[in-house]
């Protein structure tokens, strides 16, 4: 398995990367961690003429605070998410979920921005971004814009990211007090994509769910935010009956692909199991 020939570009700044994207057009691909793109190239499913490597742009890497918002450089790798004290204090879901992604070596290369921008429904960060109310900072020829995670994912390998844009950062508001969170991911083995995954962030107010986000991984052409499921619990007591309504509502929006992980019936059922487990874990933590 040998990749086809290409030209390699290693810009030192986002502006330079954007200029290259503009200049080279659809023949160019951005190289982040490379663990999706390079295997595709080795299989010759992808044959870009130019690779623009984002790994030499320091401004794209790192985690910092902007007021109450955590700002994560798009080229920050999974192991940096896991190690981050800021994330552990502010958005603990992220580092915890990152441990379930790929394997230790791949987590040294795989980036949060690459995972999101690729638009692969099997990737984990899209659903995590949805439940964290993340925003994405995108830079293109006309400057920067910030878009909500909600609405960003349009379909398999399709997002709001334009061809000449680079994802710069992910902005995530710190979790409020009394937040609970969980990421449940059913997978066949270490390193696999989810058979079905569910991310939950919620807050409790007394016995009532006062805030809730439910996101689903790999059970539809794109990551899903299960809004009807959220509604089944928002403002309601966390009872078995309401959980069951949320699970049913989440299951109703799935549209999984048939593959060796399972058929649509199984994946749909597993989405339900993951939702239930994630809700229970998140609720227990929100106390």
């Amino acid at each position: 398995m040998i990749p086809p020939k290409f030209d390699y570009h290693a810009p030192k700044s986002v502006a330079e990367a954007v200029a290259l994207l503009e200049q080279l057009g659809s023949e160019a691909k951005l190289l982040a961690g490379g663990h999706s793109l390079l295997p595709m190239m080795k299989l010759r499913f992808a044959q870009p003429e130019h690779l623009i490597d984002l790994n030499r742009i320091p401004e794209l890497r790192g985690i910092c605070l902007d007021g109450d918002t955590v700002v994560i450089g798009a080229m920050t790798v999974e192991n940096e998410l896991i190690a981050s004290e800021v994330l552990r204090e502010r958005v603990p879901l992220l580092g915890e979920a990152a441990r379930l992604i790929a394997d230790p070596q791949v987590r040294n290369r795989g980036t949060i921005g690459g995972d999101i921008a690729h638009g692969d429904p099997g990737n984990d960060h899209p659903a995590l971004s949805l439940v964290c109310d993340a925003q994405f900072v995108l830079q293109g020829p006309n400057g920067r814009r910030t878009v909500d995670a909600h609405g960003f994912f349009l379909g398999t390998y399709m997002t709001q990211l334009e061809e000449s844009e680079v994802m710069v950062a992910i902005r995530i508001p710190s979790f409020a007090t009394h937040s609970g969170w969980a990421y449940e991911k059913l997978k066949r083995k270490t390193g696999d994509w989810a058979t079905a995954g569910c991310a939950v962030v919620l807050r409790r107010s007394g016995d009532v769910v006062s805030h809730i986000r439910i996101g689903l991984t790999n059970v539809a052409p794109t990551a899903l935010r299960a809004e009807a499921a959220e509604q089944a619990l928002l403002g309601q007591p966390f009872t078995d009956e309401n959980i069951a309504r949320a699970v049913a509502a989440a299951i109703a929006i799935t549209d999984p692909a048939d593959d060796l992980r399972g058929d649509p019936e199984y994946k749909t059922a597993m989405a339900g199991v993951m939702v239930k487990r994630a809700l229970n874990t998140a609720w227990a933590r929100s106390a």
Partner: protein
Amino acid sequence: MSAVIQPADEREASLAGIGVSRLRKEDARFIQGKGNYVDDIKLPGMLHMDIVRSPIAHGRIKRINKEAALAIPGVHAVLTADDLKPLKLHWMPTLAGDVAAVLADEKVHFQMQEVAIVIADDRYIAADAAEAVEVEYEELPVVIDPYDALLPDAPVLREDLAGKTSGAHGPREHHNHIFTWDAGDLAAADAAFAAAPIKVEQHMHYPRVHPCPLETCGCVASFDPIRGELTTYITSQAPHVVRTVVSMLSGVPESKVRIVSPDIGGGFGNKVGIYPGYVCAIVASIVLGRPVKWIEDRIENISSTAFARDYHMDGQLAATEDGKILGLKVNVVADHGAFDACADPTKFPAGLFHICSGSYDIAAAHCSVKGVYTNKAPGGVAYRCSFRVTEAVYLIERMVDVLAQRLNIDKAEIRRRNFIRKEQFPYTSAFGFEYDSGDYHPALEKVLDAVDYPALRAEQAARRADPNSPTLMGIGLVSFTEIVGAGPSKMCDILGVGMFDSCEIRIHPTGSAIARMGTITQGQGHQTTYAQIIATELGIPSEVIQVEEGDTSTAPYGLGTYGSRSTPVAGAAIAMAARKIHAKARKIAAHMLEVSESDLDWEVDRFKVRGDDSKFKTMADVAWQAYHQPPAGLEPGLEAVHYYDPPNFTFPFGIYLCVVDIDRATGETKIRRFYALDDCGTRINPMIIEGQIHGGLTEGFAVAMGQQMPFDAQGNLLGNTLMDYFLPTAVETPKWETDYTVTPSPHHPIGAKGVAESPHVGSIPTFNAAVVDAFAHVGVTHLDMPHTAFRVWQALKAHNLAI
């Protein structure tokens, strides 16, 4: 001058002989990155080969256009079947008596079949060139299911066999039929069934899997046009057989063919066969006069070289009402893929499948195996097992459980009632095998005690009584007997060469030694353990015994390493060669000590004059004398060669028990406990045995719980990378508990039986039995592997157990 004589036990300890957990001699190079695997070999002027493969499973080749590929700078040649035809090398004989296309001749028969080769300066250019070769196909209807293949109007797969009404193994009854092979006595089995009050039957599919060693297959072929000599470095488990076959195919005299198996990154049966890639690389080297390297990639490995299993089995047992088995009948439809390229002893197209009466005293038995062509890759190799023994053990162990469930007899108890008893050995099975030794009952009790079996069953009963339990609990128990060490040449040969093995030992003047064998290690640690046998036999420290294998120019002819045959066959050859040396050494020692041979006692490392410990000659003393001044009438030197033709197979056995907890919501199965008791006879190196058992259990775990090679209706193999093909990581792999008993083989010179494959053969039905047992209370007698979460969940759902 009287030196204090070191006590015998201390001297024995310093030999590090049989029974010692000696650390491995091999490791120094591997832990420092200095292994020498085939892809590490670089020869001056070496070119690289890549293979153009068929994207479709069945079709005619309309046209091949090489021009674009040949136009790429650095490309030396593009060869197709038409180019090999003048050399008569476009087809080759298989070890199973069939022929296989080297490069597709007008037709492709399976997805990823070899269609053309490209030779280029480096592997990058070769890959570009392979992509640039244009092949136009006309698609033909695809046959994936072997039962469909036998329908009267099924497409003809092997047009090259048109009109051939018989094959290497008898008459062919259909255009996609290869052979039907029978063993046992059908009339006796029928009679037993007619008279029996209880009959059970079960259909099961042992899925197609792949051995998938971490190193793929490959070779470096180097033909020297000046000398007319062909050297090939190759990932082969049987280098001498490769030499014979290469000589036959190429016409180069066998004396001018040198095959070298360097370090091998795991074999597990995948590296027994002779693949088109090897033949093409050799042809290319001969044609171009330069060394040519071919290394498979992982997708090619899984898709095209040597699958295993794919047996569709129907088993039947006849029994008394108290569970005594009276008869066994088995019918198998064996999917061999597009060419019959199984690697079995010539006489046995279904290998040693007729060991399927297992550890049980069954008076009447019959089995019939029907080999069938389909549009899948050829193979059918022994994946970490003796030929088809894994299938046989799976069949009988499943059937015994089915019978136990039918009669509501505990699964341990039914085994007690049917085991061949100790006093029955040597025991001749209804299929005609003479089991050399065994002692099953105490081994079973040892395992049941170790895990507190009654407590486990009680816990299971309580779990079953709780409808809200989030998990199902299953207990799998298997009592397997293997048949390894192929084999006696009166029964076993490969292409007519008897399945003996060999050893040559030379003792050097200063008392160190070198030994060479016809086998080849792929991780089993031969360089360590073979030396231990010699150390014990000859009293030479294993540390100063070099062991070499794999180079046909230096090693004596042997049939190689697979089917757990190294210790039973080559290990015996080592002991026998050592004993020849020992006999000569005794003569020399008697001469040196001026006594008759009969006055000498052997003790650890020396010949002693009986009754006087101070008068002795060590083996080192004798070695010096053998080269310095041998007794009159004796040849100088101290060496021996032995070719060992085993009188029988060996029959290792084991009792395995597994406890699983199945998540009723997701179908995930957790292996709570796995207890493996093995009896491999004499234990040469307990550390290595334990390592081999861990590895075999882990491979068995992978097969039972996840490995699969599913094909869609078009014959596309789904899941041909390590993303989908299940090789467990350290996280998924259970922790293993091991135990042993020792029942030496009575006919093996040191009583050893072979071990590395038992844990694979034995564990697969154990995992399976545990999963099925979790469903036994709702009447389930069998579930086909692999037990992925998805498939188990489907079973949960089908039986209203999913939550």
